């Protein structure tokens, strides 16, 4: 039996990432972000999500895939975490894909350890490799992420 799972995919540069659909609360267009001084730059700031204040995490900085080109607007992927919703800033949104759980492989050990723990697995899709993001980990211990 094939156990399939649906992923919401998005891009950081040309890298493809996926988040299990049930973890995604919503995807919204660019929002005004209020910066929060003194916090690690991984935290881009706060957005107003219909009256709720939500922290926005710069996923590029979190995963160290380089800065956005100037002038591009970011998309908020709002994910549910234990600490409430958190917005992950990504370049663009891809399709929702359905994959066989078994095809996933662990990321190679050559990846930096602190980044590696954020990647729950890699799916080999036709259009490339999809990195499955561990959203819980991506949104926590951001203090350390700076160091």
């Amino acid at each position: 039996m094939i156990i399939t799972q649906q992923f919401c995919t998005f891009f950081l540069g040309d890298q493809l990432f996926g988040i299990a659909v049930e973890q995604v609360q919503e995807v919204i267009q660019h929002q005004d972000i209020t910066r929060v001084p003194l916090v690690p730059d991984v935290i881009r700031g706060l957005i107003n999500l219909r009256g709720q204040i939500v922290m926005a995490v710069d996923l590029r900085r979190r995963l160290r895939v380089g800065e956005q080109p100037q002038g591009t607007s970011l998309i908020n992927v709002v994910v549910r975490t234990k600490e409430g919703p958190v917005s992950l800033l990504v370049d663009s949104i891809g399709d929702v894909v359905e994959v066989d759980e078994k095809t996933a492989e662990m990321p190679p050990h050559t990846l930096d350890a602190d980044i590696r723990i954020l990647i729950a697995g890699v799916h080999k899709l036709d259009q490339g490799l999809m990195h499955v993001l561990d959203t819980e980990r991506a949104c926590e211990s951001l203090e350390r992420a700076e160091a």
Partner: protein
Amino acid sequence: MSDDEAIVREFLIESYENLDRLDQDLVVLEKDPTNRDTLASIFRTIHTIKGTSGFLAFNQLEAVTHAGESLLSRLRDGLLPLTAEVTTALLAMVDAVREMLKSIDASGKEGERDDHDLISNLARLLEPQAVRPPSEAVPPKTEPAADASAQPVPNLGDILIKRGAAKVSEVHAAVEQQNAGGPRHVGEILVEKGTVKSRDIVEALNAQQQARGQNASDSTIRVDVGQLDRLMNRVGELVLLRNQIVQYTNSTEDSELLVTSQRLNLLTTELQEGVMKTRMQPIGNIWSKFPRTVRDVALGCGKQVRIEMEGKETELDKTIIEAIKDPLTHLVRNAVDHGIEPPEVRRGLGKNPEGLLFLRAFHEGGQVNIEVTDDGAGLDYETLRNKAIQKALITADQAARMTEREITNLIFLPGFSTADKVTNVSGRGVGMDVVKTNIEKIGGTVDVQSKLGNGSTVRMKIPLTLAIIPALIVTTAGDRYAIPQVSLLELVRLEGEQARKGLELVNGAPVHRLRGKLLPLVYLKHELKVETSEQVAGDPKIESQSVNIVVLRADDRAFGLIVDEINDTEEIVVKPLGKQLKSINTYAGATIMGDGKVALILDVLGLAQRANVLCDMRDQEAGEKEEGRQSIAVADTNQRKPMLLFQCGQTGRMAIDLALVARLEEFPRDAIEVAGDQEAVQYRGQIMPLVRVSHVLDSECRIVSENGQEALHVVVYADKGRRVGLVVDRILDIVEESFVVQLETGRRGVLGSAVIQKRVTEILDVPGLLLAAQPGEASVGAQT
């Protein structure tokens, strides 16, 4: 939730409420053992719990309440006198019941308990009358639960007749007329006929209303707090939306839209107030537990204490009520255990052997003041001082220089306790500091006033609510920040010339002279590290034309926060920050502004700590009481001004601003006279006190041999018509050169040091010196 669970839940909620009342009732009863109403009420409560627990098969609970009920029925029937022992046993029963209820609440079971001792104790107390075993002691015929609630509300006519305001026949006629279908009420008919004065009717109506009030439970419902919180959040969002709409409509010409938005504005405000009110609870809700607390503590330490309350109905937000519950309980226990003396001591002092604990709450300036006053021993400054030194919280040196107020505040230091013995109530040295932290956490303040022998008062100022607060909105580096209004003292704007001159540096640290006092300044953009590149330099003088200073108070210490722009004050809805951002104590939360954007709320205390404004504790007090003190001009750096240099004991070279010096004099030693413990000389027809500078500054060399016949060198210092002679060892020189003062706050009486004539010279702070020189002034209060 199944039906059974629902019933149990209902039972628990009801029983908790009843138990709280029971505590009060029992304490009232002890004071007035003959109060039959109270006894009946207690009996009813226990009877109800017993009945329901039997029905729900909580056997242990039933057994305990049964034993208690038996005892109560004896008391009610007057077969047993109410003694302290009986009361204690009954209170123990209440505690046992409460524990079981808690256990039922948590696990659905009564829990493994052994209440044999309690039950047999309750049974034993029945003994003096010893006839029937407790199981038969309950007269089943008593079902008094009905008697209070079943009382019908009296008719208006009956009340009038009873009061003699109307005759029976007149009332009957009027009632008939009303029953016949007239649109008017009895009261109106009577007034119209001229038989009864309208004032009598109003009084009678009030009486009727009161009788109805007994059935208040009919007009209230229980609401889940979570539900209220959600409602509150929605209203918070509505407020934000309202702000956006109002902002938008202000930029349009559409008059109809304007009117509509104004109505929306008004309605939202009313709705907000209404919802806030539902969360308000009278402080009496927590106070009601204190008579019991006081009784237990007083009994435990052999004291007699009466508790009085004023302003029970003062309302506070539920979350705040929760937050102040523990600190208040601690203060009450503390007052009984530490404050109020044992009866024999009180008698010896000519006081009423029964101590008084007075709780007072009232609204003032948008805040609630809560006071806990006792008429006990008060704080003994000497003891406090010694205790603090003994516990190495302060040095002897510091202690000698502290004022009464500072000493009083020592009790808020962690690890401080003045109780000679550690009791199980208090004296473990955890407490007052926790009280202070907890109160400050919710934006309140604590203050102690005390008079030795006359008791002390702890005063707390608490905000009404935490959810929506007035705040000042400021802009810095393009971002808006909200500053809670409670911390705001004033706003200062310096323009043009003032902006350049108003900011001065004390060895690089910016200050502003605010009414003659130096106000330390903090640049918000520096603290938040958000300055844009051209502003990095940090030299305030090159910056923009005007300077905006927000004067804030943190922990009793004032400082100025420099921001780019001061916008407006607004009611903001406080929203908490996520866990990831909570570790930064610079922010108290965030809010959503009228335009829908997020703004951070600054935590003034955290910001002050970050900027090191608070690092020196002593200094803050100094600033406070030196109101009107002459500003020490030496803070003007890089200015040339004449200074008088002198030699002073081991302290070495010192300097004083020559402008402060009236004259230099020499007195022969035998001209010194002693008035009290104060040395003085006669000078120009006045008595001029002398202060030996070296004695004050160097506590080690207090004993100085008065050898030699050489004259005393005295610097005459004049301030507001009062002259003081500063005795120095030798006058050195008068110089005029520029120097930089390094502020040094370690010693009272010394402003700092500077390099003058290429040598390190201390700059004298005369007002500070005089304060330090007059310990007599500080101890006046303690001796009264």
